[in-house]
């Protein structure tokens, strides 16, 4: 981690960049947060470890408007989002100095808590130089351990790979964390009866409090004004009374990012209610792959997205009923 700080200081010092976009330590060891660093002194607070899950590419929309270049640290999966933002003219490549940082899988404290570990004071073993086998957790009730992989975010189990899609330089090693099939969860739901599917989503979505965290964190959901805040559709937010509006919100949100979503998983990571929101996006990705050929948003900055493209012999919508 220190090498990242050193390199950032160098780049600040030689004027290559005017600021640094990274993560700073939070009040607990497991909740670092995105932050700008404008000087070498500020960089003392910089952290980068297994809990730095936040995808910083979206912050580059605002950073692109600032004077001078911004040094941004992007994990392999974040670089897809950044590419997608370039494609949509939302970020300025020239305004970014990208250090692709390695990643050994990002962690969720919720997953640790879910194992019955309470009263967490600090967590060790999440550093980039650690073995990433076991986490040691100091709690009010004594030291506990937890396997690194068990604490990992869902998205890391279906990792897209260790390669950075875009960067000016790469630092730190990455680790293979993929140990599950990307579409297994979606397939499990697809195999349900309509009643089961409905019950599943009814249960999940009824938890939604419309806090908009998913929307705010999403690098694809970057509209200046969201349709759900707009009078143009007469769909501006209302009180949370029944479940339909949540369905409408999440379906439309997923639809708006379909073909643009890189499957970064931030929506599920930030949801305070723990709704597996990535399922919506991943369902669209799976359908797009099946119907129109494999497509990974953010792999490049030029190709046409599947929803702004077509072939003459695309499947008909009736396929939905036909495949049973």
């Amino acid at each position: 981690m220190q090498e990242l700080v050193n390199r950032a200081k160098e780049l600040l010092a030689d004027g290559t960049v005017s600021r640094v976009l990274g993560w700073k330590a939070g009040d607990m060891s497991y909740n670092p947060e995105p932050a700008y660093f404008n000087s070498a002194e500020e960089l003392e607070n910089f952290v980068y470890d297994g809990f730095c899950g936040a995808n910083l590419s979206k912050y580059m929309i605002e950073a692109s408007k600032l004077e001078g270049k911004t040094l941004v640290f992007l994990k392999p999966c974040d670089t897809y989002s950044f590419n997608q933002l370039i494609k949509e003219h939302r970020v300025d490549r020239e305004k970014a100095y990208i250090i692709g940082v390695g990643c050994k899988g990002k962690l969720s404290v919720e997953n640790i808590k879910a194992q019955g570990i309470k009263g967490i004071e600090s967590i060790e073993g999440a550093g980039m130089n650690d073995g990433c086998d076991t986490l040691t957790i100091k709690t009010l009730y004594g030291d506990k351990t937890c396997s690194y992989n068990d604490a990992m975010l869902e998205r890391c189990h279906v990792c897209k790979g260790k390669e950075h899609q875009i960067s000016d330089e790469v630092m730190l090693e990455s680790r293979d964390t993929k140990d599950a099939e990307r579409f297994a969860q979606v397939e499990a739901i697809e195999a349900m009866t309509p009643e089961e599917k409905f019950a599943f989503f009814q249960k999940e979505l009824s938890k939604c409090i419309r806090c908009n965290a998913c929307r705010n964190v999403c690098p694809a959901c970057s509209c200046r004004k969201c349709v759900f805040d707009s009078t143009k559709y007469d769909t501006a937010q209302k009180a949370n009374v029944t479940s339909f509006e949540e369905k409408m919100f999440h379906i439309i949100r997923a639809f708006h990012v379909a073909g643009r979503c890189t499957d970064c998983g931030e929506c599920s990571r930030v949801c305070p209610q723990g709704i597996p929101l990535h399922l919506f996006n991943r369902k669209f990705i799976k359908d797009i792959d099946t119907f129109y050929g494999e497509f990974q948003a953010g792999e490049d900055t030029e190709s046409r997205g599947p929803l702004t493209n077509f072939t003459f012999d695309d499947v008909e919508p009736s396929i939905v009923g036909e495949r049973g």
Partner: protein
Amino acid sequence: MQRVGVFVCHCGSNIAATVDVKKVVEMVSLEPGVVHAEDYQYMCSEAGQARIDAAIKEKGLTGIVVCSCSPRMHEATFRKAAERAGLNPYMVEIANIREHCSWIHKDMEEATKKAVVLARAAIAKVNLNAPLQPGESLVTKRALVIGGGIAGIQTAIDIADAGYEVDIVEKTPSIGGRMSQLDKTFPTLDCSACILTPKMVEAAAHEKITIYTYSEVDKVTGFVGDFTVDIRKKARSIDMNKCTGCGVCQEKCPSKKTPSEFNRGLNTRSAIYTPFAQAIPNVPVIDRDACIKFKTGKCGICEKVCQAGAIDYEQKDEIVTQKYGAIVVATGFDVIKVDQYEEYAYSQSKDVITSLELERIMNAAGPTKGHLERLSDGKHPKEMVFIQCVGSRCSDDKGKSYCSKICCMYTAKHAMLIRDKYPDVNVTVFYIDVRTPGKNFDEFYRRAVEDYGVNYIKGQVGKVAPQPDGSLLVQGVDLIDNKQILKKADMVVLAAAIEPEKDVRRIATMLTASIDTNNFLTESHAKLRPVESPTAGVFLSGVCQGPKDIPETVAQAGAAAVKAIGLLAKDKLLTNPCTAKADELMCNGCSTCANVCPYGAITYETKEINDHGIRETRRVASVNNALCQGCGACTVACPSGAMDLQGFSNRQILAEVDAICR
């Protein structure tokens, strides 16, 4: 909120018989914004329009809803009426309570309820309408005619005579089309060439007409008044300016084995050829697939014998790009392949032929020099059998569901001509119905029966069995006698169904002109706009629109020309104001909309935006109203909803949805 007036039309009894119009008036009066509602016998009549006029003025209406027939019928009428009364024409909405309601529902209560819902939706929409101003676009004073048959020729001459430039694009080496293949024409038995050739010459000589033969339309962009078309002039391998049409090359060409398209493959032609003697232009083409020079590199005889030095083996396809104000489609027809009806043994016997092949056999310039003879052995036939409706009126997947319309008449013609020229030949016609609507048509058919002794048998043929002696045993039925008939014939002639020229679907797609499942182009209105395609600026001439004979084709060709002239006579056209519009404050500048725009109407500019006091330089979308056709693809592609469609805005459509689901 608008001040809305609702006008409910009885349409005589068309609406009023099924929809309780009084009830509709009563119900819509309760709707928000409605300050006036009335019903009337015929809203589209002058008196009806006067009522609208009066109400707008007296009640100060700012929007009106007419509950009547389809907007495709009278939207324009009511918009004009509103405009005369000083209202912006785009403040008019139509609730279609005839085609979508009274005509398809029987129960009055149900139909009335539905009419009220449709009216509510229109009221909800009009409450959100905004006045729109159409823009203007210039009209290019030039017409394109696709197809150089009698339909295309007639249309071109008529447009050119009105003083406008016309280009004819014909894919074969000569204009003339199917009519040039015919021997005689019904119901007067004129010689086809005698009446067609002067027309061809007239078109060729007309100073306003340019003919592109051996050419195809490659690409069409633009819209009414301003189409841009790429015409591919296929490499003819002949310099048209040098060729004198002497014909020596064709005589000397050693490759003479290619089936002649013009003679329906009944004989062969040389690789360098003009399709027929009267071809216009009288300049041959080299069929590169058949030419020895092109296949092996050796030969070159035509080049050697051509004194004009017109042969050019190096010639390449050439693209001519031209602008047009109007396009007339006159692509014509072909006969279906009859080998899918092998019970008639077409591909098993040379003496089973189609009627178009018989035309060539009967023609003095045809493969038998006009002598009626069997193609198998050259013998003169004694018994001829004609079979009607081969592939017409079929609901199987092999044939056509429609009546080809011309077969009854040409078969009567053939029968008559044969009996006249060869009284020793017996002619039998197996028919299902004889259909002869048309001036002097039934008389013509009756002459065949009464004066020429043609034997008409009501019933179909089930099988044609080639016999060891070379004759054909025709197994048919006489439904009047209720007997199966076995008839020995020397020749059998099949009245094969006609179908639109294969190319027409490609052309329709380029023109975005509507086409039906049979590949006939769709007219804008079956009765009232029969020569106009629903696509503005595209007109229909001849069989591409539906089966028709020569007199009808020529009449329709003239009608299409008049419609095209009417368009070309205007200097400017009003453009549809229902175009897309981007809200700069909301636009992300992401280019998603531009990616789906079929017209390239969306561009991006980087400009300073004042977003509620925040001044920022942003990349924002901008719509070119002259190019935008108002499809709305961009509006759905836009995730933020910054792109909206005027006249069909998100809020308007949602208001309609809400009104219907209420």
